[in-house]
């Protein structure tokens, strides 16, 4: 059943579902990164999401924003390197922008993706088209902003945007990160960070509709 808003507990459980899904997807993420990077993205995300589960399961939070900030903190503390910093930034900045809200509505979903996406860009220095996670984040934020209804609708829009961004990243040439030395050889495969973002957005949407 589609949800108008999500409570703090539902937001937490949604992120626990995301953590399970990413851990399950570790082989997919590893393969995606092995094609273009050094193959450590899957294991890094698995480690990050295992820490997320420890930080969230059974714990209470004062706001929905603090749930996302807890996700971000767990990821950045456990993953290390650039991906820990940028995924940590996505959730921390997105959560911080929600201030003290006790429910997550459609507008909140749009704020989360927009602020998360903007801060990942300013922190990591990547722009759209560089074949990084930004290429899934930006369309997710744009689609979520266009959806003006319930939390469910906004989450579904973000998921569609992220999936389209992941697919579009196949046609991009990497200009940042480890894949940049591959040049045109990076064509035809999606960016591993985009694959992760698409799974996260899709799982959030599925949770809201379940």
């Amino acid at each position, binding site marked *: 059943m589609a949800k108008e808003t999500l409570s703090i507990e539902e937001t937490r459980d949604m992120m626990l579902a995301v953590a399970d899904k990413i851990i399950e997807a570790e082989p997919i993420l590893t393969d995606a990164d092995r094609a273009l990077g050094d193959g450590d993205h899957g294991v890094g995300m698995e480690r990050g999401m295992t820490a997320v589960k420890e930080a969230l399961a059974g714990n209470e939070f004062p706001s929905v924003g603090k749930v996302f900030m807890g996700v971000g*903190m767990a990821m*950045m*503390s*456990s*993953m*290390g*390197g*650039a991906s*820990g*910093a*940028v995924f*940590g*930034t996505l959730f*921390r900045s997105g959560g911080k922008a929600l201030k003290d809200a006790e429910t997550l509505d459609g507008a909140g979903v749009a704020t989360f993706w927009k602020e998360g996406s903007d801060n990942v860009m300013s*922190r*990591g220095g990547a722009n759209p088209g560089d074949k990084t996670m930004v290429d899934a984040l930006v369309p997710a934020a744009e689609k979520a902003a266009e959806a003006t209804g319930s939390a469910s609708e906004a989450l579904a829009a973000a998921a569609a945007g992220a999936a389209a961004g992941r697919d579009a990243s196949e046609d991009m040439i990497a200009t940042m990160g480890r894949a940049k030395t591959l040049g045109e050889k990076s064509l035809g495969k999606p960016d591993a960070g985009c694959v992760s973002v698409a799974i996260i957005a899709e799982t959030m949407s599925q949770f809201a509709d379940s």
Partner: protein
Amino acid sequence: MKKLINDPLKVADELVEGLVDAYNGECKFVGSRSIVKNDIPDGKVALLVGGGSGHEPIYHGLVGRNLADGAACGDIFAAPPPNIVFEATEEVDRGNGVLYLYGNYAGDVLNFDLGAELSEDEDIDVRTVLIWDDVCSAPPTEKDKRRGIAGLVPIVKLAGAASQTAKSLDELEAAAKKAVLQTRSVGVSMSPGSIPATGKPTFDIGEDEIGLGMGIHGEPGVGEIPMTTADELTPKMLDLLIEDFEKDDEVEALASGDDVLVFINSLGATTMMECLIVLRKVKALLTEKGINVYDVMVGPLTTCQEMSGVSISLTRMDDELKGYWEMPCQSVCFSKMEGRYGG
């Protein structure tokens, strides 16, 4: 390469534990993996350094009396994650702000910036000065792309002294920026170090080649040149340094009558014998140009395991920097008495 270690994944934790033991009560292990001085006075403007482990004695070996107040330690060759930076910041803060001073590497900047954000959430005032002394890593117009190498040691020494008397974060930041601006380094490498966990070399280089300007992890520099003698190589390295002072609009060219601090660093395997032979040539070349060697540092202070190679760093000293240099300092890995040799 034989390494006397235990669990390869615990190397960073265990070496920092050992370092704390070496400090014998002067410093403590904090949070996940930081080292912090025990006796930081109230109100002191704090100085925090940090970076990947495996380059000992930097960065954590520079915590000490009149040096850094603390260090956030990463895993081997990896930036410290933001929570470690934050834990160290909280522990060194005495209410008057914390200066982050570390080498300019993308991973370090990302993670220290996030650590700063976490600290600011707790109302701790944080400022950052990046170290970018490696002149071969980018032209002087693109200092944001330059790497931090051995020049970090004199820079942290000078900033550590400045932090003892600085009345504000602004004052310490200005002193650290001046030390960074006047410090330039050029390195060469002859053979790689190895990663403790895997035993794999950090880069490849031919038996008969020297990597001119190569970074401490094997990052590209000017390029490979045929293996040569100390007296052939040293002028090439020194020319790159002198040229950089000339080309950079932000500093004056090095001129006759200038005082410079000279630092000959070994990357690990290069012996003191070789460093001294390089120093001898550096001194002769500077003397020819009328540049005065104000004081000298020699030794393996910025290393990459058993990597072989040397770097030359020059810091142009003015009266302010001389005052900072002449203050005594002490750490497990780097100590000096008051004043200077020959002073």
